[in-house]
């Protein structure tokens, strides 16, 4: 029971990160391999503000979000827009965006190593036990989970019940047709990419309250986010959340029953099963 709850709590934060990636890939069509680095940037900001100025990580979310939004918007406009323009097909854009964001991820890791050094970053925030169904859980994990639920919930409502959200979903389904009904696809893609980056960075700030981060851990989170997005289906927020919870539980199961060093191997195991049996995602329909 406590394994499942710990897994669900972890999965909640994963959902946040993967939702960010899904917005970037599903709407802006950018397979962003530097996603994990954006997460680490968010985590480091929370660390610096908490240890330097004593600002609670929950408040930091409101600082991280606009900064990450602006940063990602600039990345999209300066670096990725030219690729979108020169790409002849979706496959070519995918390939070029993979290469570019891969280079970007190394650049960001390098910058963070330079500024912060290669050591681990950890701070103690709300490290008190909290009793739930008779078992003890870290209060920071519960708070992190609640933050994730609130952010995902707001995002879900906004995407499904607002005009701008509907436009974004339209671009996700078909950029060509969205253009025909008067949606400014380039502008909206930039916004979706920026929102995705902001959500991921918030996820980083949240995750830093209970996990140890260092400058080069980003790629592990990129991997997990990618696996979740594929499991849940590209462009499907609901699927992403459920896939994230499944991954969180699966990983916690493997970590506590077999070995904590095998979390990525566990994620990979699930990835292989999905690839073999449901490559269109858990809730996706088979392409005709």
């Amino acid at each position: 029971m406590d394994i499942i709850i710990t897994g669900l709590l972890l999965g909640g934060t994963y959902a946040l990160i993967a939702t960010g990636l899904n917005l970037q890939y599903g709407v802006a069509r950018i397979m962003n391999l530097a996603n994990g680095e954006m997460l680490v940037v968010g985590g480091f900001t929370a660390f610096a503000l908490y240890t330097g100025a004593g600002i609670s990580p929950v408040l930091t979310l409101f600082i991280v979000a606009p900064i990450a939004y602006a940063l990602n918007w600039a990345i999209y406009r300066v670096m990725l827009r030219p690729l979108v323009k020169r790409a002849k097909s979706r496959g070519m854009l995918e390939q070029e965006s993979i290469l570019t964001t891969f280079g970007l991820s190394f650049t960001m890791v390098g910058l963070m190593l330079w500024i912060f050094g290669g050591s681990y970053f950890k701070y103690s925030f709300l490290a008190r036990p909290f009793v739930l169904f008779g078992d003890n859980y870290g209060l920071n994990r519960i708070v992190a989970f609640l933050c994730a639920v609130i952010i995902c919930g707001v995002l879900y409502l906004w995407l499904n019940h607002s005009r701008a959200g509907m436009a974004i979903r339209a671009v996700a389904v078909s950029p060509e047709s969205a253009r025909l009904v008067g949606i400014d696809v380039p502008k909206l893609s930039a916004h979706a990419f920026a929102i995705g980056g902001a959500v991921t960075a918030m996820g980083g700030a949240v995750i830093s309250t209970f996990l140890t981060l260092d400058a080069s851990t980003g790629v592990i989170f990129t991997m997990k986010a990618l696996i979740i997005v594929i499991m849940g289906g590209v462009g499907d927020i609901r699927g992403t959340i459920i896939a994230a919870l499944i991954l969180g539980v699966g990983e916690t199961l493997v970590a506590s029953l077999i070995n904590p060093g095998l979390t990525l191997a566990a994620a990979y195991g699930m990835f292989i099963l999905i690839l073999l049996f449901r490559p269109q995602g858990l809730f996706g329909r088979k392409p005709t």
Partner: protein
Amino acid sequence: MTTRDWKNLVLGAVLLGIAALLPLTGDAYAIALGVNIAMYGVLATSWALFSGPTHYISLATAAFFGVGTYVTASGIDVLPYWALPPLAGIIGGILAGIVGLATLRLSGVYFVIFTLGLAEMIRQIVTWRQNATGHKGSYVLTDLTENHIYWQLLGVAALVYLAGWAIGRSRLGFALRIIGDDEQVASHLGINTAVSKVALFIVPGAVAAIVGAMIAPRYIYIEPSTAFTPMLSFQVVIMAMLGGTGRLWGPIVGVIPFTLLWEVISVSFPNQTTLLLGLCFLLIVYLLPNGFVGLFQKIHARALSKEAYQ
């Protein structure tokens, strides 16, 4: 075979022969650099054999390379050394086949994502096995010198070039070029796209494992973090891209300047290697998307059109 084929073949053999004379200089630094260039040359060329025509970016080099080093590390006490690189090649090929079967039936993104984390996953499993059995790293003690490693790698290079040349002329190579141009057209033509891709992906997998097995004696002490460095996959991609993947000789044209540049960078800025590698990568993607081969072809085409006007 045409006269042109013979000419290329002889030219390639002569160049390799000249390269094989390097250890005779007796300069230890030059030989060490030569081993690096030969290693990256083989890895980048075999990488481009698959990723060049198909445009599928494989980030799995480090995984196969690491598997190869572990074949040597765990087999050196049991088997004679000469049996290990071929064995590594077989294991690497089988692994590549499995990875290919799982991912290459689907769109390219799945393949990239899968290969991105493959090295890390195998590293976790190896570390876990080692912790479970109680021994951390292993020693590879042989009487092989840098010279021997260098010559072995040149031998593999010769095989890779021959294989690449043969594949380029075969039905398989032709099929893959069509797949790379338009996968739908390829399947309408009756090409079994999945089988062709998996078959070709086995080549870089086996070659990277062989190279890993050959490099292992150089490391002497082998542990998971040195055998599965994710940086290796990245370096191979960047070098092959710098040279250009459109021609068989492309990657080596990128490998030589980049290895020398990397030598300077890692000596002068040891703390900024990751940053500089990322920046180099971005520069290549934006400024030289088709590598030196593309640049050369552009200049060549311009010279030709100038001649035509005169």
